[in-house]
């Protein structure tokens, strides 16, 4: 029996859970080394045991299957993706001073920043080991192409993160939606959607797939996903969303919402926003954050971001058809198609 909740069916959720379990088990396997200290293994394994969505490895595994190979062929890559994603989360939480991750205290709050940062380094190193295992399964030529995709993705991601932190440090208030989209292409889309799709198609087709349509589909999907994440940070419930509410505003993140507010606010209100952003993060009081949130609502900045994201989501649905045009209908192909509304309309 299939039951329906909005866009999501239980069949879809079951498949997502299965892909997640497969990738997470494989990722966990790379931590199963008795020679490694528990001061590395405990914090490194912490986030992996939390209830994440598993979207990235699921996208990679499903795309690989849809293009004709087996899930097992893409498992080392999916595990590497999960390990790298977790490493990015650990470091991101330290950089942002975040309090919550997936509904629980962040790693640096549990273990201290030193062990947390080291665990993040360890997870990234273990991902390299997972990618090395592709040699045996895929052959050296295809394995080298997968590695090149990961190297390019990692460069984009750390560059995107540096840009965002730099914007905050330099207190930039002159940014446009194009600047924001360029940032999230680097910071989010590459490792969330573009790489999983491209690597899945690469492995699934034995290196024959045209990967350019995957770049387009991946970007549209990832951008709509990230803007939804920005909106949820303002309107989502902490219980479901799993992060502290209004965290992005407190950090002064240059989200599309904040950029719209800076552009739309009256001169007096813009001055208030700029004064808030000029404060060191530790001096931004709860009341000041609440004031900023009220302005965001008053100027329609959330509605703007939602509409903007829906325009991109439409492109994602169209780009999916182009990217998967040569792929026959199958459950994994339908799973990827269903990921579009799932990622764009989610509430967590």
């Amino acid at each position: 029996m299939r039951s329906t909740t909005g866009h999501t069916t239980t069949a879809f959720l079951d498949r997502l859970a299965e892909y997640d379990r497969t990738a997470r088990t494989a990722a966990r396997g790379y931590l199963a080394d008795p020679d490694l200290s528990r001061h590395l293994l405990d914090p490194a394994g912490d986030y992996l045991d939390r209830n994440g969505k598993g979207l990235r490895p699921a996208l990679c595994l499903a795309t690989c299957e849809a293009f004709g190979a087996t899930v097992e062929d893409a498992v080392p890559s999916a595990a590497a993706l999960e390990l790298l994603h977790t490493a990015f989360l650990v470091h991101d939480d330290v950089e942002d001073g975040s309090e919550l991750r997936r509904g629980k205290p962040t790693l640096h709050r549990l273990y201290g920043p030193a062990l947390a940062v080291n665990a993040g380094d360890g997870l990234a190193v273990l991902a390299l080991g997972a990618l090395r295992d592709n040699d045996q399964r895929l052959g050296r030529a295809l394995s080298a192409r997968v590695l090149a995709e990961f190297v390019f993705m990692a460069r984009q991601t750390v560059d995107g993160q540096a840009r965002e932190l730099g914007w905050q440090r330099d207190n930039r208030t002159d940014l446009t939606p194009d600047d924001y989209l360029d940032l999230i292409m680097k910071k989010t889309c590459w490792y969330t959607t573009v790489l999983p799709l491209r690597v899945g198609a690469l492995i699934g087709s034995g290196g024959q797939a045209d990967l350019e349509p995957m770049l387009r589909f991946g970007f549209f999907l990832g951008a709509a996903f990230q803007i939804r994440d920005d909106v949820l940070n303002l309107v989502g419930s902490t219980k479901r969303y799993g992060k502290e509410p209004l965290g992005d505003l407190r950090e002064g993140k240059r989200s599309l919402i904040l950029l719209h507010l800076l552009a739309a606010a009256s001169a007096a209100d813009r001055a208030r926003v700029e004064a808030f952003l000029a404060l060191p993060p530790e001096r931004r009081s709860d009341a000041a954050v609440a004031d900023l949130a009220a302005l965001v609502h008053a100027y329609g900045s959330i509605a703007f971001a939602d509409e903007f994201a829906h325009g991109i989501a439409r492109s994602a649905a169209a780009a999916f058809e182009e990217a998967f045009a040569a792929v026959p209908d199958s459950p994994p192909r339908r799973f990827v198609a269903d990921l579009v509304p799932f990622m764009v309309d989610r509430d967590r």
Partner: protein
Amino acid sequence: MTEAVRGLRPLVSDVRTFGLLSATSVVDRYVDLVERTLGPGSAAAGYADRPGSPPDAPDLRLLARSTARMAEAYVGLLGAVAGVVGEAGPADGSAPRGVGAAFPATVPGGRAETTLWLHNPTSTPVPEVTLAATPLVAGVGAAVPLRLDPPRLEVLPARASVPVRLTTVVPAGQPPGTYHAVVVASADPDGPVTVTLRVVPAEGRP
């Protein structure tokens, strides 16, 4: 029309279209970078070098492919825009391109709302923006009033988008059919927005 916005893209725009266009322009910038770094011919991706091409020569094959892709994306984009706003307008640039909005289908006696966005992509605020709208009219001559909220803005700030609520109340007994109206902003009189309303029979009635 103020000097600040003369010659720039239409001020009145739809945010969804704006999102679509912005995202497309960003992804287009990356296509070439990714081709160079990871596509055929890139040493990093483990491909063999193609014979006969000096290292700095332009790759005509890739260039041709990229040009074809841009044309294809443009055609696809026009189609997508038409899907979003309902009316793409003339594509040859000979006349101002129209953009449009649509109310959800409404029964006689019902009320419908939709949103238009005033968008100022320039770095200069636009003062005193007034909006005017015709009634919604059908081919048979029937008309339905259209209300704008707000009908006037003291200023449309630089790089800002402001929503304008469009509301209509369809009188009971209004003939079913497709109704059209035009909304014009004083700051961009050459970029009218068409608005469409489909009045459908109430359930159980012919």
